[in-house]
């Protein structure tokens, strides 16, 4: 543990910090869109925007997954109040990524969109990650969370699958394997390492379950 005493964030502090996070994430997105529109985002603004929103989504997914180990490590339980917000921004960036692809790369050609999703595995993988993130975002409201009970946690564990699919999509979109995504894959292992106890429990609970009764072969 880093601090001797757990750090508590008062209401005004929470408000200030949340506002700063909003300003940073929205501002960065708006600035990048502005640069793309005014041709200041490299030679190919469409590619520039796709890269920015795509990598932004992956970074935000990582941020979401780092919040709970951070909250325990500091310790500062109030950090957990930021998790939903950062997760929703991951979805927002992913939605911008997809919209950029649809509007500027495919020129709103919906027939092409469906055939690309069907034909290109890496597009399908990215699209699946987006749909999962959408499901997690919709169910992130407190009222729905309460209604879902235990199943909520089960569903929201899918965020790991999301990260995996997003990274697969990222690696697959490049022409060679050796590149930036490798750093992200390494970071994923690190994030999973912070969850080792949880993973272990999950693994043991699976093994303890009685094996399904198989039909005896005759």
């Amino acid at each position: 543990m880093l601090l001797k005493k757990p750090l508590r964030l008062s209401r005004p502090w929470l408000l200030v910090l949340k506002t700063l996070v909003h300003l940073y994430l929205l501002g960065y997105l708006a600035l990048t869109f502005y640069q793309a529109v005014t041709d200041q985002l490299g030679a190919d603004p469409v590619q520039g925007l796709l890269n920015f929103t795509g990598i932004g989504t992956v970074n935000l997914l990582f941020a979401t997954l780092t919040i709970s180990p951070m909250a325990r490590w500091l310790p500062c339980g109030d950090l957990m109040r930021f998790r939903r917000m950062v997760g929703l921004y991951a979805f927002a960036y992913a939605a911008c990524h997809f919209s950029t692809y649809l509007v500027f790369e495919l020129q709103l050609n919906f027939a092409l969109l469906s055939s690309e999703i069907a034909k290109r595995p890496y597009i399908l993988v990215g699209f699946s990650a987006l749909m999962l993130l959408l499901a997690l975002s919709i169910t992130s409201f407190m009222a729905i969370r309460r209604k879902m009970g235990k199943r909520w946690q089960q569903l929201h564990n899918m965020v790991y699958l999301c990260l995996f699919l997003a990274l697969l999509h990222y690696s697959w979109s490049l022409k060679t394997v050796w590149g930036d995504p490798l750093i992200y894959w390494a970071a994923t292992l690190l994030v999973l390492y912070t969850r080792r106890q949880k993973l272990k429990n999950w693994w043991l609970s699976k093994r303890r379950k009685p094996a399904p009764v198989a039909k005896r072969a005759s």
Partner: protein
Amino acid sequence: QPLVFTKSAKYQTSETQTPYDKVTTYNNFYEFGTDKSDPAENAQGFKTDPWTLTIDGMVENPLTLDHGALTKRFALEERIYRMRCVEAWSMVIPWIGFELGTLIKAAKPLSSAKYVAFTTLYDPAQMPGQKSRFVGGGINYPYVEGLRLDEAMHPLTLLSVGLYGKTLPPQNGAPIRLVVPWKYGFKGIKSIVRVTLTDQQPGSTWNILAPDEYGFYANVNPHVDHPRWSQKTERRITTGGLFSTKVIPTEMFNGYQEVAPLYQGMDLKRFF
């Protein structure tokens, strides 16, 4: 440096040219990093003088050109070509150079020669991508490319030493590079040190790395998709931001129909 050249009327264009700063900041040159902006940042100290370009193999008269000869031995002309990248974007670039055929003729090819193999400089001290797998995308260097001899002798095939009236910036393949306008951009091997005539089909870097994605011929062909994306259209990089994005249909042989006879009778879906 400014170059002395003529403008041939045949290769002018009414198409909007890609501005100089875009041509020179958006490059695939993995020897200097895999990001498109990396070469412009990492190649600035690249030494191109002295330089030796060797033409050898199945020739009667092997040649070596030094740095000065690259721009002075053959008359230079400006040609404005479309450049279609395999990644489905394209540019319009005023190259300056001479026909590869002129050089090959000067070396007097033997009648047994069937192919031309090209090699990029191998110098890990100057090219960070050759030193580190992470920087260079895990490609086996040096970068190699190849053409059939008749493709190499085609009047469209250019050895370029400059663009926009000046010598090539390092990120664009200084001091000399290949430009084959009817093929995908990766065929345009950069910073060439060796041209070898041979009777065997030579290796080509991307084809070796991923043979199902990049063929030896690599002719621009809207009917043969890259396994991961469509090649039917391309994004033309000119000026203007996001809302003036130009997506245009890709043409067979990048619109250079005069090369079609080279491939008569060939199944271009198989020999892609």
